[in-house]
């Protein structure tokens, strides 16, 4: 069975890094990712089941890995060779806990204590905060933050399937399409980020970047605030580079969506701030600004921009995956800004003293907005080079989420196949 396998191969890794200079995703053809015949992964133990992927997304972190741009921090948190793909909707091949075989499931890919067979679980996992697992990389599994970076579990970019612990599986309601379902994982990341921001009523909130994560954050804020699960912002501004992103951001609930170059101006207007230098210009900064900025890009420029438009004692939530960056943190120091990380998901506070799984909330958000509409193009894994290039240039090419379609018969009604090689 075919699967895309990421191998430890330093020459190919270097080639990928060089090629990615031309654009994200350009390194796929020369990098360590190869289409190979593989066997299905072994079941690691009790409580594990096989899942046949139906649709699997290409994430920004996947692109960073393929481009050779990932931080070396992750070196000890992955194991080779691995099959990428952690945004997965698939079919369960054997029962897993209370979920019967044949059900569609969404994978919660974080490999916490339960999946690693660690008893008793760490404090974080005991509280449901899987993303904060303190035993990550240990236990009976090979290292791997998540399915899709672990040599033992397989990943979503595969026809050979993957294995998942029952605690990682969420049944998909019948009324959600596969495209909706594949959006649950990234929306869960966004949902967790929204809770990490500790929003308060009436705050001015900015979402910088309107790719999948940025749009998902907008959708999560609008849905969760309308249902009283988080506070309702006074204004929700989105910085979106491309027209289709601006349109989607406003459809999903942004008060206004503007070009990132104009975002600081829009924030200044709404916050009644003064400005040092022209807003948005190099070295320019607001004296007041937004209460919360969600940085859904994760670059040095985006962090700098976020720090320039957040108010003193405001919060910048890092949603996009950063790497090794050169950023001037003087404004963070002088303005006493809280820089908050937001990785993955787990459990979020609900009514007094209770928690709710982030994925359960993500299902709500996806259903409320039918976020399968963000899936812009699908490819078979045999055309992975085109798929990865498309994902790397998604914004410029009018796309949001690019996925691999692994369904034996195409059951999709509303997502066009990406044009074939002859048509490109």
């Amino acid at each position, binding site marked *: 069975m075919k699967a895309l396998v990421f191998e430890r191969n330093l020459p190919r890794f270097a080639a990928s890094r060089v090629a990615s200079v031309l654009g994200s995703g350009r390194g796929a053809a020369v990098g360590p990712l190869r289409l190979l015949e593989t066997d299905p992964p072994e079941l690691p133990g009790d409580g594990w089941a096989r899942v046949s992927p139906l649709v699997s997304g290409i994430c920004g972190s996947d692109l960073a890995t393929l481009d050779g741009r990932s931080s070396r921090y992750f070196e000890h948190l992955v194991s080779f060779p691995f099959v990428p793909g952690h945004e997965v909707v698939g079919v369960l091949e054997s029962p897993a806990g209370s979920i019967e075989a044949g059900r569609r499931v969404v994978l919660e890919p974080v490999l916490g204590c339960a999946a690693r067979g660690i008893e008793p679980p760490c404090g974080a996992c005991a509280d449901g905060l899987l993303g904060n697992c303190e035993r990550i990389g240990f236990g009976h599994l090979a290292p791997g933050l998540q399915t899709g970076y672990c040599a033992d579990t397989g990943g979503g970019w595969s026809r050979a399937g993957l294995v998942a612990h029952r605690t990682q599986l969420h049944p998909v309601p019948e009324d959600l399409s596969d495209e909706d379902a594949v959006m649950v994982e990234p929306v869960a990341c966004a949902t967790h980020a929204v809770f990490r921001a500790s929003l308060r009523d009436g705050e001015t909130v900015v979402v910088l970047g309107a790719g999948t994560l940025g749009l998902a954050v907008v959708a999560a804020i609008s849905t969760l605030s309308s249902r009283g699960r988080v506070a309702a912002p006074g204004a929700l501004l989105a910085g979106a580079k491309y027209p289709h992103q601006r349109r989607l951001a406003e459809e999903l609930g942004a008060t206004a969506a503007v070009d990132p170059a*104009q975002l600081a101006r*829009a924030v200044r*207007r709404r916050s009644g701030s003064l400005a040092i230098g022209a807003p948005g210009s190099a070295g320019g900064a607001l004296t007041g600004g937004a209460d919360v900025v969600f940085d859904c890009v994760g670059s040095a420029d985006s962090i700098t921009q976020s720090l320039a438009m957040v108010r003193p004692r405001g919060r910048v939530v890092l949603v996009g995956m950063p790497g090794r960056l050169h950023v001037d943190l003087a404004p963070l120091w002088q303005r006493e800004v809280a820089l908050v990380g937001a990785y993955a998901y787990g459990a979020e506070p609900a009514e007094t003293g209770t928690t709710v799984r982030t994925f359960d909330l993500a299902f709500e958000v996806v259903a409320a907005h039918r976020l399968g509409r963000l899936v812009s193009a699908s490819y078979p894994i045999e055309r992975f080079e085109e798929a990865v290039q498309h994902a790397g240039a998604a914004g410029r090419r009018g796309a949001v989420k690019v996925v691999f379609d692994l369904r034996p018969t195409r059951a999709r009604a509303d997502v066009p196949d990406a044009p074939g090689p002859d048509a490109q």
Partner: protein
Amino acid sequence: MTPRPGFVLEVDRSTPPILFWHGERFVLERLPEGSRVIYAPEPLSALDDPSAAIRHALRNPLGDRAPLPALLRPGMRLTICFDDVSLPLPPMQAPDVRQLVIEEVLDMAASAGVDDVVLIAALALHRRMTEAELRHALGDRIYEAFAPHGLLTQHDAEDPDNLVHLGTTDKGEDVEINKRAATSDLLVYVNINLVAMDGGHKSVATGLASYQSLRHHHNPRTMVHSRSFMDAPSSELHTSNWRMGRLIADSGVKIFQIETTLNTDTFPSQFGFLQRREWEWSLRDRATYMATAAALDRTPPRVARQVFHSIRAPHALVSVQAGEVEAVHAVTTANVWRQQGVEVRGQTDILTMGLPYISPYNVNSIMNPILVACLGLGYFFNLYRGMPLVREGGVVILHHPTPWEFHPGHHPSYIDFFEDVLSDTTDPVEIAKTYEESYATDPWYVHLYRTGHAYHGVHPFYMWYWCAHALDHLGRVIVVGGDPAAVRRMGFSPATSLDDALEMASDVVGRSPSLTHIHTPPLLLADVR
């Protein structure tokens, strides 16, 4: 030779293509047969001795005013206010008329022993003038004598310590103006009356006013009922200013009004073809046009902008009158019409206009899309008396590149207005209701207006309100050669060529419309009957 009067040409087969301004470029357009082209009168002859004419006017005032020397005495407070950088257009070759007039006023003040003299640039909510602009308007001698001592100031409509509320008109309009000017023993106001709407009570009531005062007449309701700005008796804007002006006079502010009119000699000789009628172009005119057009085609817009903004017009003084405000203004207005008036019979279905690189609010700056709209629909559309050149429900076709470009230092609130307000609505009434207050009171805009060279935060609203009458009157506005996104943002239709624009206009005015073109420069005023 006597200058020829204005003229309305009917286009026939022998008519050559007609020159249109297109921002920092020109184009020649062939208009359909039967179209009308309105040409301004030729420039009137300049006064032989401007300084002598000015002295004569100051000593022989109009209306209920004593000669200026009789109003001056030792120990008095004298304030001389003058029009800002928005006049004239383009800026005139030195010496500027303001310099000539103020030098005469200062000579008389010195002779009378007046030593408390302050000069104030009457900015209203315009940007502060730069030192270079002040030196150009006043001359180095005046600048050096006053500026270093803090005696040359610029009106600050946001300085509560230097504003005084004089009262409220019978229509409930607050009259709040510059305190130094209002509390002086004599306020001398020096006007350059480029068009008929300039001057009169508008000089002090607008030029020296605060936002609280200006908002009573700079609003959509007043603008829609100003038909037109160039015809004061039919202009609600002027009616409001006249009420305020009379209240200012009744409150004891003594104004000595000086108004000047210029001829329409607008461009230096190397651009002589701009002022001539196309069928009268000489070989040299044709060659100059072709060379200029070819050069501009190859010149980056930014460079072309610098070149054009460096032009100084050879405007010459053709009249000067002084004395009581209303008496002076009546004569001034007649003089403006004498220079610019053209009688036009009947309205048209389509009105075309080529818009230049400059408007009152982008001297030494960028003509952003809002200023393009204001110049076309606020100013050129209103260059009429009687009735609009274009019929109700008709079409205006503007010719301008309309770049999505703003000067961040001069027009900061314009950027936000264009991004935030016009993306929501283009309805002036809705805009005023929803957005004006927050822009007018935005502390950052106030800061930039007071300390930098920025137009007041509310200024883009006023520009849009200037368009209100046209927006209310027209069936469609089409912009030829404009940035499509910028044009659409304003609710207008972009066209790539005049032919396309005419085709688009046919949806509104049918397939055999009448067409009239305002040929500028120079400026003209249509007396439509």
